């Protein structure tokens, strides 16, 4: 009997996963063409980044001028090096693929941090209200008063060679346990992730707060109060799940923005430090070898553009899907 119940519970978990997947497929089907294409582009880039060693025979730091052919310095594209090589004889394509790792990791982790801070702060501010709301939002107002990049380079500059991990060891350990990222803990990239996360948290906090306020006004929340449910449960079970769609859509855009942001920081030399390959640093290094070695700067730029564009178009498609206002377009009568 007991086994039976457990079995049925397992079944229901499978059902739930199944219904989630069906729902995702349904969402995908409703997206417009550009968003669907974008979805596959983002997927392809993610897979390439994750499976980088399988995609390219070289290591990102491998200097082909030393290991293979001395001529492979600033060499134009060939079938073996489809995007040419750089000054040190490294394969640009290889560095591009490994660069995708840092771009995506920075984008996702930074937005993860921003979402954690922003959703917590925003939902507390929106739901508790009063002076708690006032003080949280004033702090956010202050943070948002600094243009993001200005704040970021200042913070990165102020941190200097120290990484956030020396200040926040717990989070550092958490990061160190992640694949790929784990080996970066001593690199500036950790600072970049944290700074971008901090800088974008007010935006998520504002959206979350607005949505929580809107949802709190809904009758079903009042109905939940009327059943005697506790305030915390009402927030977690009724309000937040119904407030998250715009936050998720915004997060998609923020991942795109964060990738651009990281590229700018790295281009300025304030972001990710060698030896981790990133697109921004590649552009910055190659800039001095224009116009002759155009491939060194052109391909990383295109890579940034395609990735960011795909994420933006996907976000736009998701917004059309989840924006309640466009969903209630008046039909007949």
């Amino acid at each position, binding site marked *: 009997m007991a086994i039976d119940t457990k079995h049925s519970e397992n079944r229901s978990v499978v059902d739930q996963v199944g219904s989630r997947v069906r729902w995702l497929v349904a969402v995908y089907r409703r997206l417009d063409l550009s968003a669907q294409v974008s979805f596959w582009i983002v997927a392809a880039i993610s897979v390439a980044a994750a499976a980088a060693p399988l995609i390219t025979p070289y290591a990102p730091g491998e200097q082909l001028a030393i290991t293979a052919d001395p001529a492979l310095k600033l060499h134009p594209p060939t079938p073996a090096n489809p995007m040419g090589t750089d000054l040190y004889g490294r394969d640009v394509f290889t560095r591009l693929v490994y660069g995708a790792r840092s771009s995506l990791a920075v984008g996702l982790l930074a937005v993860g941090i921003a979402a954690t801070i922003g959703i917590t702060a925003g939902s507390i501010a929106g739901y508790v209200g009063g002076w708690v709301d006032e003080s949280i939002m004033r702090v956010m107002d202050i943070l948002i008063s600094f243009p993001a990049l200005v704040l970021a380079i200042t913070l990165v500059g102020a941190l200097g060679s120290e990484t956030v991990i020396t200040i926040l060891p717990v989070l550092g350990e958490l990061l160190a346990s992640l694949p790929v990222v784990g080996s970066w803990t001593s690199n500036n990239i950790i600072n970049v992730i944290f700074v971008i996360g901090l800088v974008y948290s007010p935006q998520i906090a504002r959206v979350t707060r607005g949505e929580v306020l809107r949802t709190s006004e809904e*009758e*079903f929340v*009042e*109905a939940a109060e*009327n*059943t*005697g*449910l506790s305030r915390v449960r009402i927030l977690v079970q009724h309000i937040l*799940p*119904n407030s998250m769609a715009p936050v998720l859509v915004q997060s998609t855009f923020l991942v795109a923005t964060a990738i651009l942001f990281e590229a700018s920081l790295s281009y300025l030399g304030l972001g990710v430090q060698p030896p981790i390959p990133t697109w921004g640093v590649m552009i910055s290094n190659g800039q001095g070898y224009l116009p002759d070695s155009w491939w060194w700067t052109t391909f990383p730029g295109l890579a940034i553009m395609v990735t960011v564009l795909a994420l933006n178009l996907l976000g736009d498609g998701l917004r059309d899907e989840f924006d309640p206002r466009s969903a209630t377009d008046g039909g007949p009568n």
Partner: protein
Amino acid sequence: MSSLLTIDGLTKHFSEKDSLIRRLRPDQEVRTVRAVDDVSLDVKEGETLGLVGESGCGKSTLARAAVRLIEPTDGSVYFDGDEVTGFSRSELREFRSEVQVVFQDPFASLNPRYTVAKTLMEPMRVHNIGANDTERRERAASLLERCGLGAEHLDRHPHEFSGGQRQRIAIARALSVEPSMLIADEPVSALDVSVQARILNLLDELREEMGLSMLFISHDMSIVRRVCDRVAVMYLGKIAEVAPTDRLFTDPQHPYTQALLSAIPVPDPTVERDRVHLEGDVPTPIDPPSGCRFHPRCPKVIPTEGWDGSQAAWQRVLALKRRLAADELDAETTREHLEDERKSVSDDAVVQELYDEHVARKGVADAETVSLPPDANDTVKSALQRLVAGDRDGAVAMLERSYTTPCAREEPSLTTHGAGTHQSACHLHDPSFVTQSKSQNGELAVDGIASGDAR
């Protein structure tokens, strides 16, 4: 019948958004919205009490404050002898299983992410009804069937249902904790008429079957008449009249109730009704009128001693006075307008124009043109002359001296009619006011409500 829910002097005031900066400025007062003001009512066991009134009259606020979905400012509420207003958090939670609310908008009152089963089982879980989820699910299924839907609907989401079906689910949710009382807040106003009838029938059956008491809130007099045993009429946060349903509809005592009843469009073209025309809009509960809150719109507002004009003329004089006091009349704008129209812009012309606009109401499609008794005519015109001369305060004082209504002076209290179950709050039923007005105006007494009074 003993009373199940007793509301005693309940008051709910909302402060307009208050802020430090607003306080820093001396010219800005924090305005208070007096949504519900000192209301007493009781719902008896097994009874359906209707609460009617126009939007903004405070009926929903009253109901929510009574069950502490919002915290009342003042007053007390008793449920089955216990003081709800004194409940602790845990007592309040227990109380939630006794009184349940059915909300207005079935499209908003169900969590769109919950399945029907989850919606129905959550309250049971909170109140420990049913031993486990299997049992609760069974109960949910039978509740759903009771409300006219099937167990096969349990795993669906709200968006798969029509408005009427959703309202059934909302009712099933309310019943899931086995309450002894329902508060139905406009439960059918978002639905089409054919669906309305079915939901009302369902509520009726359930009430009878389960012996529920009900507070039924509605703006629709026709529905109230069909559903309720007793009806309370609210106006601007106050109870104007309470009576058994048939008494209220056949023999309304308060001028507001009379107007309200006469305003409902009757679905019968052969009925030619004498409509009581109510002037103006429903005022906001911020700064409600002094005295009887209905007096600025009241078609039977008591005239000053010695008034020998018509009731309509009296109302115009009062309205003029009010607008003057609120600084709504501006002689210069009127003069500019006359200039635009290429008419005379002399002071006399401006006075005449203001007089025509506010007293005679010439050229207004749906208002009759009235004339004032000679002495009133003179006073009003000289008051307007003062306004044109720039002395608004003087103009107001002048009218104030000669023309005030006792209705604006003090608040009426509830007086009883007939057998004691019928109460209304109108000065016309107050013996001291009635003698005062009857003595100089016979027409009023006939026109007045006094005729229906048991005397």
